[in-house]
């Protein structure tokens, strides 16, 4: 069918600068660039361009610039270009609109309406370059109190604590499955997590044998497809996470098309090569909270109560009550993924319209668990679009124990957020199983970039903590007095449990 769609982008090639080295040609998996065999010049077909910026970035003479196509449609406030293009696309294909990454819609980002406190005069700020500054965090269920006895003149702990995950900084890499992303990406996360004393999460695609050696820093996921779940998988991990939902697509399952199920994915997921990997929307053995409890305890039994069990849900309207139920069902960790959480593939309408912002979810869940006196019984992990150390420290002040970094980790490794993960043609070698593309993600480099990011953000958090006169992260956790709202309504402030800036 003749397409009514205009290209989204324009590619400008500065012929003075172009040295016809062909980097752009070889690097574009969407075949945008090609050599004109008549004169050796290079031409570009922008209709295929997804603006991943691979060519722009690698062009050694910076001969390429990408511009948004200025006038793709006669937009107005209601009928935006995006809306029109979606309709044309669907009129041409009859299909559900697919997309990748996180929600791009302009829902309020509360992080940008929350400001942090700092000490002045009456309270010295602490310089993390001179004084200890502690970010260490333990995730897991804590008792209300500890019992200590004195035996033979020395103190002894009588209370047996539930298993905990030790984090040297309050970050984890989000669940991203082998299949959604390439092996190298997982290896990079595993190595960075190991180096930085944090954790990565397998997602629901199993754990490749070669990554078992990073098990101590690995959280393995048990999702509705149960891919790759077996004894060794559970044994290899530091913790097990039951995935109920995902912020980018609450209420729906996953679908890895058969063409991405090559030998590696097939082996790891334990499904035949070439078959579609379908994760059902619900777990078919969890139709209620008591079913969840059974699975939690099955997994605890299977791992002999040596590993914390996490339950991950999407932040939806009654997230606080659900989280409370999950804690009471026996989870050691509740992971909440907000509406800006990313994905390898999701129906656009769902990604863009279902769920609630993570800020509100953290605040609601933390308060609810406190109201019920069970906040200590589970750690709260927050996920969904964390962009900076400032977002993270604010999340912690709202009540999160630590945060999952998905998109930020991918961006650190090179992702340019073109949202075409679902095509499997990721030019950055991230969301692909194509061996020609996959090798672009050098795990050595990617691991270093991740470690650098974690290092940088840790340090920024230390600086901000020190500024507040705090030298241990637990003194900020849930300490909403260090936050003030700017430009928020009373309702929003009430839900966030934060005062407006100006109120002392």
């Amino acid at each position, binding site marked *: 069918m003749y397409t009514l769609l205009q290209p989204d982008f324009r590619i400008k090639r500065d012929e003075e600068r172009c*040295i016809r*080295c062909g*980097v752009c040609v*070889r*690097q574009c998996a969407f075949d945008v660039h090609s050599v004109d065999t008549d004169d050796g010049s290079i031409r570009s077909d922008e209709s295929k361009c997804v603006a991943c910026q691979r060519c722009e970035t*690698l062009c*050694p*003479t910076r001969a390429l610039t990408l511009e948004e196509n200025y006038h793709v449609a006669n937009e107005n406030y209601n009928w935006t270009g995006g809306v029109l293009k979606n309709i044309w696309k669907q009129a041409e294909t009859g299909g559900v609109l697919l997309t990748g990454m996180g929600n791009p819609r302009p829902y309020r980002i509360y992080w940008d309406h929350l400001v942090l406190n700092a000490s002045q005069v009456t309270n010295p700020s602490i310089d993390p370059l001179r004084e200890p500054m502690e970010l260490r965090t333990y995730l897991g269920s804590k008792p209300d109190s500890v019992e200590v006895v004195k035996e033979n003149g020395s103190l002894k702990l009588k209370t047996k604590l539930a298993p905990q995950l030790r984090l040297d900084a309050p970050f984890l890499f989000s669940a991203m499955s082998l299949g959604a992303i390439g092996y190298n990406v997982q290896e990079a996360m595993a190595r960075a997590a190991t180096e930085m004393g944090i954790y990565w999460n397998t997602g629901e695609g199993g754990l490749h044998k070669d990554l078992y050696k990073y098990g101590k820093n690995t959280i393995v996921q048990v999702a509705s497809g149960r891919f790759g779940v077996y004894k060794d998988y559970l044994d290899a991990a530091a913790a097990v996470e039951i995935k109920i939902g995902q912020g980018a697509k609450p209420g729906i399952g996953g679908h890895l098309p058969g063409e991405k199920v090559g030998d590696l994915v097939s082996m790891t997921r334990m499904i035949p090569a070439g078959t579609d990997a379908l994760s059902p929307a619900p777990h078919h053995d969890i139709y209620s909270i008591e079913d969840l409890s059974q699975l939690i305890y099955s997994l605890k039994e299977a791992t002999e109560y040596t590993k914390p069990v996490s339950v991950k849900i999407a932040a939806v309207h009654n997230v606080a009550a659900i989280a409370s139920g999950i804690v009471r069902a026996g989870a050691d960790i509740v992971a909440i993924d907000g509406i800006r959480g990313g994905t390898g593939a999701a129906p656009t309408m769902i990604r863009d319209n279902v769920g609630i912002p993570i800020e509100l979810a953290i605040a609601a869940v933390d308060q609810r668990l406190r109201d019920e006196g069970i906040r200590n019984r589970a750690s709260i992990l927050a996920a969904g679009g964390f962009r900076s150390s400032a977002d993270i420290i604010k999340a912690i002040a709202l009540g999160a124990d630590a945060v999952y970094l998905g998109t930020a980790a991918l961006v650190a490794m090179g992702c340019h957020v073109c949202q075409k993960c679902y095509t499997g043609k990721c030019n950055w070698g991230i969301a692909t199983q194509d061996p020609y593309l996959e*090798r672009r993600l050098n795990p*050595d480099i990617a691991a270093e970039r991740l470690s650098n990011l974690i290092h940088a953000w840790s340090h920024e958090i230390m600086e901000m903590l020190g500024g507040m006169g705090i030298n241990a992260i637990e003194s900020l956790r849930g300490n909403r007095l260090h936050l003030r709202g700017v430009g928020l309504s009373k309702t929003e402030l009430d839900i966030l449990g934060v005062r407006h800036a100006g109120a002392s």
Partner: protein
Amino acid sequence: MKRIYAIESVCMNCQLCAVFCATGHSRSKDIIKAHNREKVLPRLFVEEKRPVSFAVQCRHCDEPFCVQSCITGALTKSLEGPVVYAEEKCVGCWTCVAACPYGAIRRDVDRKKIAKCDLCAELTEPACVANCPNQALVYEERGS
């Protein structure tokens, strides 16, 4: 001695190694001039057969066939290790091209000279290695 090694598993066939090699061996050292005016040849070959690719440079052999074959003495094995090429002595007989088991010597046909990797002797790290965006080339001492 330190040699250049390609790491095939992460070579992504961008061939920027060749671009920066040529630039580094140009008179101007300007990437655009080097290619659009001077037309400098890279001192390496990128082999490619999707999905695999890698760069091949002179291996600076311990017993270099090229040196032993060179009819003019333009190629010599230095005590420090590198196989040194004196361009002014080369007459373009291509015997070294026939002899090099790595296929690492390029013919500069117009000038009747060969071009081969000199490890960017004046730099701390060869240009191809320094500019590889994916660290698919390393410059290091291994074993021998």
